[in-house]
């Protein structure tokens, strides 16, 4: 272990340090000046994000428990950018009187979950994987329960925590069986020994259940909507974007590097789950009136699409999933950003409140529309490219009917996305939400996500970069 190894772990180390720095500053700050933490944290995190982009090499630490390579670093960077936007979007909300005393805690909890995700991504064994998973989940439950005066918030917290405990219990049971059948918790050993026997399939299913919870796949998704609704909006956007994105990254890593020997089996499982997830997610999203719930269900449906990339089982699938998640982060953050800006300022988050929004807040409405179109996969915004590549990767493995079902579902999803567009642009309202001007941070966040939505699709280099990195992972 030497200094260069520290550089290898720079994401985890820096963020841990960052969390500690915040803790220390917070202890030394007078109550009146607590809001200073926000700008300090934002600045530091921005630096952290930039540093993350330093070139990285393939490397393994701790005897294989920690591994890193450019692709994994890229995943972390993608998450960092997303988190940066989330942080920018939460500024207004954090500055509210009621949250004043808990600002630093918000950051620390958020960062610790992010550290958990980093570790999950970089894990080389199931122990680190599990630890990362818990680290990424438990503090979020606390964050979901962040707002005291709202019963919904606490309800969201406990629902998340208990279901997560149940799911990680089942996951652990699966892990124990995996350990029992292969004698190792290290990925590199397991992948050599894993075979298609009933017991190992069972173990895999138990394991997959836990992952299904994390990405909210049907039927492990039921917590999603309630938690998204109850949690503070920025936590929701974090949950739905960063947490889910990370889980998708991890799922694909695990599927491709650990369980690739039972791909014929898990492809069938993924097929079924994917169809269920897309359809059920859409069916529920169809009639939602609360914007947060609406986005929750839509993100469930999106998770179904992600599986299409995994089911391909090739580099193309891997690339397209990562690319899709990247696009999804920007698109969903665009949508959440608008919902968050509106709900923080006006406290309204029902779709009916959005009637006639374009007349009063044209820019917000436009961004929202673009974000929704991106989620629906409409050109020329990035979502179109993301979806197209996902479908292409599934088709490359011959799953044409699955692609067909998926595209039909995308059409259904277009329906409810258009309902929001309709509310904003077409519906007339007696009392539309009054015009308001968001503060700088929110606007920066919105602009960033808007730019991402626009540029990512056309900018093929990004896709190519991911592809070149994915290439290294599988072969």
């Amino acid at each position, binding site marked *: 272990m030497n200094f260069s190894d520290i550089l290898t772990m720079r994401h985890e180390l820096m963020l841990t340090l960052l969390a500690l720095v915040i803790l220390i500053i917070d202890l030394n700050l007078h109550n009146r000046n607590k809001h200073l933490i926000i700008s300090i944290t934002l600045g530091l995190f921005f630096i952290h994000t930039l540093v993350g982009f330093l070139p990285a090499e393939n490397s393994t630490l701790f005897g294989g428990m920690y591994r890193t390579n450019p692709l994994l670093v890229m995943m972390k960077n993608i998450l960092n950018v997303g988190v940066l936007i989330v942080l920018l979007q939460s500024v207004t909300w954090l500055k509210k009187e009621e949250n004043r005393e808990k600002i630093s805690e918000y950051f620390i909890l958020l960062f610790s979950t992010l550290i958990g995700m980093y570790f999950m991504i970089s894990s080389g064994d*199931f*122990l680190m994987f*599990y*630890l990362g998973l*818990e680290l990424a989940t*438990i*503090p979020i*439950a*606390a964050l979901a*329960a962040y707002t*005291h005066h709202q*019963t*919904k918030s*606490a*309800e*969201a*917290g*406990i*629902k998340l*925590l*208990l279901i997560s*405990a*149940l799911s990680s*219990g*089942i996951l*652990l*049971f699966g*892990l*124990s*069986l995996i*350990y*029992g059948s292969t*004698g*190792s*918790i290290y990925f590199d050993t397991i992948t050599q020994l894993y075979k298609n026997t009933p017991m190992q399939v069972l173990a895999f299913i138990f394991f997959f259940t836990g992952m299904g919870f994390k990405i909210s796949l049907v039927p492990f998704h039921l917590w999603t*909507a*309630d938690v998204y*609704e*109850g949690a503070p909006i920025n936590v929701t956007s974090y949950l739905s974007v960063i947490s889910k994105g990370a889980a998708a990254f991890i799922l694909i890593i695990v599927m491709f590097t650990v369980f690739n020997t039972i791909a014929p089996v898990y492809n069938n499982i993924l097929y079924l789950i994917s169809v269920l997830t897309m359809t059920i997610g859409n069916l529920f999203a169809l009639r939602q009136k609360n914007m947060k*719930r609406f986005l929750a269900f839509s993100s469930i449906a999106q998770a179904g699409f992600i599986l299409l990339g995994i089911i391909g089982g090739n580099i193309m699938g891997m690339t397209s999933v990562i690319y899709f998640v990247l696009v999804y982060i920007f698109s969903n953050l665009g949508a959440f950003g608008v919902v968050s800006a509106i709900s923080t300022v006006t406290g309204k988050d029902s779709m009916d409140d959005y009637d006639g929004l374009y007349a009063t807040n044209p820019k917000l409405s436009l961004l929202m529309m673009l974000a929704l179109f991106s989620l629906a996969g409409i050109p020329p915004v990035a979502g179109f490219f993301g979806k197209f590549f996902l479908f292409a990767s599934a088709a490359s493995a011959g799953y044409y009917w699955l692609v067909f079902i998926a595209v039909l579902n995308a059409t259904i999803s277009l329906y409810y996305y258009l309902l929001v567009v309709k509310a904003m642009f077409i519906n007339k309202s007696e009392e539309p939400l009054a015009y308001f001007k968001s503060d700088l941070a929110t606007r920066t966040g919105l602009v960033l996500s808007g730019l991402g939505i626009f540029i990512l699709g056309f900018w093929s280099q990004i896709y190519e970069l991911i592809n070149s990195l994915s290439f290294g992972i599988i072969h």
Partner: protein
Amino acid sequence: MIQNIPLSYFLTISTLMFFLGIYGFLTRRNLITMLMSVELILNSVNINFVAFNKYLYPQQLQGHFFILIIIAVAAAEAAVAIAIIINIYRNFKSIDVENVDEMKY
């Protein structure tokens, strides 16, 4: 020692315990007892790990350390869970899960 007790006994106990935990989680309506069911589940996993480690792969202590970490995590989880439960109790004046359904559909 353990020569006379086959591995399958341990596995049977742990599996039964696991599903008992799940059963408890499904039927209990008190948030704390649900949490206790989770502990049962985790405990059953631990038995699995320890049995596998001992019976099959005693050269390394992988299962052993896995359990250590699980126990630590369980503690952390329990701490946060209880904090939230207490918060819920403040809000709902009850920790009956039937009442915690303000958000639905």
